């Protein structure tokens, strides 16, 4: 019997409600493991963005327990949360670029927050912008970029620090199919280096682009597990069960 795989994220009976409204997420329980590629699917309004907010620590759950990187983050003092956030890269659905910063400075922001020296970040940021096809727009402000260009800047910002976990909310929604494929290949490449990737999408075609991915499906705030890999203890994918 093999040793249990170390989990990177574990949700136990998590519920989320905003104010006094009914729960938008109910009894969410799953585990994520390092180096896996997860898709979170579901119709609009199913709660995908709310679940991702819990994942990237922008929201506290109304109930339940969340462990990340081996630590119960619900009971952690908020001063310790930045250290967990720095281990994640996030692509927000609305990009959330800083309006008054250039594309270069937006991409460099996570590195600056993490304490990377200016001399050390110039090259990687320039290379990253070149790779997403925006080297010529490095000095442009987000307001002057198209939706697709903004999305590429947001993705470059999310992956520049090579995070332990990448959380992306509809990351290919505003780019052409060629760029969408290129971005998914980037996510896969990061995934092969050990980054856990969680991509929320309602694009079923995208799911087929990553054959080894695991799928979480949200329906009206309730999580289903069509690939059977999210249970705790998890069913070993590819273990013949």
């Amino acid at each position, binding site marked *: 019997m093999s040793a249990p795989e170390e989990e990177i994220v574990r949700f136990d009976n998590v519920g989320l409600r905003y104010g006094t409204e009914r729960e938008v997420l109910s009894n969410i329980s799953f585990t994520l493991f390092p180096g896996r590629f997860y898709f979170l699917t579901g119709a609009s309004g199913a709660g995908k963005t709310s679940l991702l907010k819990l994942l*990237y*620590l*922008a*929201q*506290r759950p109304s109930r339940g327990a969340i462990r990340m990187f081996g630590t119960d983050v619900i009971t952690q003092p*908020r*001063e310790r*949360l*930045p*250290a967990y*956030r*720095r281990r*994640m890269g*996030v692509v927000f659905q609305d990009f*959330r*670029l*800083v*309006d*008054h*910063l250039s594309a270069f*400075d937006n991409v460099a*922001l*996570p*590195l*600056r*927050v*993490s*304490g*990377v*020296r*200016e001399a*050390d*970040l110039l*090259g*990687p*940021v320039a*290379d*990253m912008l*070149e*790779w997403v096809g925006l080297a010529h727009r490095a000095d442009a402000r987000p307001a002057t970029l198209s939706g697709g260009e903004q999305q590429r800047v947001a993705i470059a*910002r999310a*992956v*520049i*620090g*090579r995070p332990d976990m990448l959380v992306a909310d509809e990351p290919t929604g505003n780019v052409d199919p060629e760029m969408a494929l*290129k971005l998914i*290949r*980037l996510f896969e*490449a*990061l995934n092969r*280096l050990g980054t856990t990737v969680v991509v929320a999408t309602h694009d079923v075609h995208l799911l087929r682009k990553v054959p080894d991915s695991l799928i979480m499906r949200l329906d009206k705030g309730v999580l289903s597990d069509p690939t059977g890999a999210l249970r705790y203890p998890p069913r070993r994918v590819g273990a013949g069960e």
Partner: protein
Amino acid sequence: MKKPPVLSRPAARGPAPLRGKRAAHLLPQTRLGGPMPWVIAIMVALTVLAAGGGLALDNLADRARGELAGSATVQILAVDPENRARQAEAVAEILVQDPDVAGLALVPQDTVERLLEPWLGSGNPEDAVPIPALIDLRLRGGADKATLDRLRGLLAERAPDARIDAQGKWLAPVLAALSALGWMALGLIALLAFTGAAAVWLAARNALGSNRDTIEIVHLLGGSDHQIARIFQRSILFDALLGGVLGLVLGMAAVWLMGAQFSALDSGLVSGGGLESSDWLVLALVPAGAVVLAVFTARFTVLASLRKML
């Protein structure tokens, strides 16, 4: 497809903190608000004025107290001029031998008459208004009640019309008023400090509100409260430095002008209220205090607001 650079060459996370110019550009406004340096300048100028006035009053009171501490005046109130002169001589003769008396001086009668001239007019006939003889007394151990009572006892027999009063007693109400003015200056400084802190608090909250999106993004990318607070601190630091220097120049100029005006009065009491070089140094430190107060207030305000975010 070309390999993305981040896969082969991740940037090394290091010790370079998010501060200084690296952090300043995160806020679109490099200052907390346009009027902030001017508000701080006015606060500092008023504080320098209040502190300058308070220090001058304190010096004035100290010098007056020091000069009067060992001084007493003997008045011989006898109506008959000959009797008065005889008693004055007796007083001088007795007191000059007393170990507590450091020195004495009989104030010449024409000096006394000149002093009273504004009230009595010139050419006051000797017997029209009896003018007391005055002896200026300097005591070794201070003009305390026990010493004065003992001296009164010595004079009682040979100079029954003599009255001894500590000079400090006459100026006691003036000194009390000066002390009250000094406390008022201190209260004014406290009020100005409070008002300045409140202005910084409002400006910091306003800046936080208008940059909320940026702050949230920095937070979600792993920025800590202290990193964000440092950005605002840096901003208010420059505002406060600018305002402080401007306020100091204005305040110092006003204090210097006031000093020049008062010294032109050529009054013994008022001229004692000048500022020492150490006082000017204290005034020069007012902007430093304002900067510390402003930065501390901004930091406290920003951290308190950020605590409401996850």
